[in-house]
């Protein structure tokens, strides 16, 4: 017969679980189930859902394209100031997102040091545009990818890469055919975390990209606005977020993010 786990651990663990469960119970208790179909098909909700999915997925994709090389450099190349770079990369994890959004505005806004020349050269103005949402999402979410992938690269047995080189593979071939496939579980886990963080992003987005329905108003922003005016819509929007997040996290559980 198996011994029972210590009672104190069971009690504390259940209290911890309650902290996660109670808010959802509250949400479900306030849900206007009868009006739900109408609420969910309202333009505000569908616009926000579409925008949230598009911008969060793009943020995850950009994070992969820029974050994997950054992680590789941090893990494999010794350069002066590496620890400073690593601190800068992880800064958005600690920084209040509002501060991040403000910083983005000062840099990439119309009068920002990069935003001004960028607008003159290309006509592209990031703030208050959907691209601005993507930038804000990426800024806040990419650190999750970088630290996950960097950790995986550090744990990878580099002898495999040496072996691949000895069989004639150049460095990019080694990366593509050996390194990345071998850290695939961590890479996917990092992408899921990055996407999840981008999907829920609020502070940096509203500060940098504003709150325009159909253009920059993502689900979290729409919830915030609706709470002031229309509680039923706020609840419906929240349910959509909970549902999408749960579906993704459950579907990917075990199979993909064991590496965490």
């Amino acid at each position, binding site marked *: 017969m198996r011994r029972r786990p210590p009672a104190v651990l069971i009690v504390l663990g259940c209290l911890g679980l309650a902290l996660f469960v109670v808010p959802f119970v509250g949400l479900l208790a306030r849900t206007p189930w009868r009006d739900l179909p109408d609420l969910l098909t309202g333009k505000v909700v569908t616009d926000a859902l579409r925008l949230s999915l598009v911008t969060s997925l793009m943020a995850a994709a950009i994070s992969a394209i820029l974050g994997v090389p950054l992680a590789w450099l941090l893990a494999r190349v010794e350069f002066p100031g590496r620890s400073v770079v690593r601190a800068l990369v992880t800064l958005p994890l600690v920084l209040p997102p509002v501060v991040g959004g403000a910083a983005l505005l000062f840099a990439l806004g119309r009068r920002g040091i990069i935003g001004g020349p960028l607008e003159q050269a290309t006509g592209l103005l990031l703030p208050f545009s959907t691209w601005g949402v993507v930038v804000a999402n990426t800024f806040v979410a990419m650190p999750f990818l970088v630290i996950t992938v960097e950790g995986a690269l550090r744990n990878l047995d580099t002898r495999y890469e040496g072996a*691949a*080189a000895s*069989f*004639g593979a150049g460095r990019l071939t080694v990366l593509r055919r050996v390194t990345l*496939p*071998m850290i*695939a579980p961590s890479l996917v886990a990092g992408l899921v975390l990055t996407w999840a963080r981008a999907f829920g992003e609020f502070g940096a987005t509203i500060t940098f990209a504003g709150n325009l329905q159909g253009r920059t108003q993502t689900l979290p922003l729409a919830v915030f606005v609706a709470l002031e005016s229309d509680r039923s819509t706020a609840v419906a929007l929240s349910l959509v977020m909970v549902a999408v997040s749960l579906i993704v996290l459950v579907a990917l559980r075990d199979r993909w993010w064991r590496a965490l």
Partner: protein
Amino acid sequence: MSPAGLVAHLVAHRGEGFRLDLALSIPPGRTAALLGPNGAGKSTAVAALAGLLPLDGGRISLAGVVLDDPERGVFVPSEARKVGVAFQDHLLFPHMTVLENVAFGLRSRGAGREAARAGAAEWLERLGVAGLADRKPGDLSGGEAQRVALARALATGPDLLLLDEPLSALDVTTRVELRRALAEHLAAFPGPRLLITHDPTEAFLLADEIHVIEAGAVTQTGTPDDIRLRPRTPYAADLAGSNLVAGIAEGGVVRAGGHVLHVGDRLSSGPVLATIRPSAISVHRVEPEGSPRNTWRTTVDLIEHLGESVRLRTGRPLPLTVEITEEATRVLHLAPGAEVWLSIKATAIAIEPDRPTA
């Protein structure tokens, strides 16, 4: 004229104060072994030859091409060298099938997908593991993985075959079987072959020439028989199972510590190494009579049964390894702690001048 085969002088520094300094020359069709304990520098030598670690000094030339020469600023990177390595622990790529693993080198060196797969299949066939083509490395036994690793090393048609501890991860039965297969494939490989191992049996059976390496330097080079019968360092002697006694020779005796050994060689003088084969030592329960001049009393410290024969470790004044038959052990009622007399014929002790140590 640039020499064929491998001509290498490897000088590399690693970690705190470790220095590898090793000269190697292997003609095509010959097998050399680097035999040494862990930490002797064997892996550093592999990394340098494979191009994974640039030399700090010396030079590597293979089939007439200089691969590394730091003084002249020449360094051919790993992917451009034609060195086929069967790595320690195999290092088969876990996410690829066996076939993809062997095809990897061919693909990297420019073969098309189909050609690479066909070439890989042919090598798997030759190594007798064609049936494993679609398996993942995680599902292979040690012996199977070693054959696949060998196929992968040979598939690209390298100029040098490097085998790093090829049999060390295998159980005894598989090792004996695979050693035979390895001997065949080594013989079929036309270029120079280098075997890296800490297992003397492997080196003795597979190599034409053995370089004993200790603490980054070669301490003895010779044929397997040279090393076996005339080991020059306690490590080599231990590998070969022989006793090695360092002492000072003069007029037919060798003084080692406080002990005097009578030897057949009356001419040598100065520092010498005396080699005594374990089977050349006789064991008696009472003081023997007659000719042996080397006779002394000691105790049995340790008894090791090795099938037909038994190895004894004796105590002071001169600790030696003695090999006798199981039968003799029984007749003499030997047990640890037993008091015995040892005798060695003077002519059974080989001596040779001890090289001054650098």
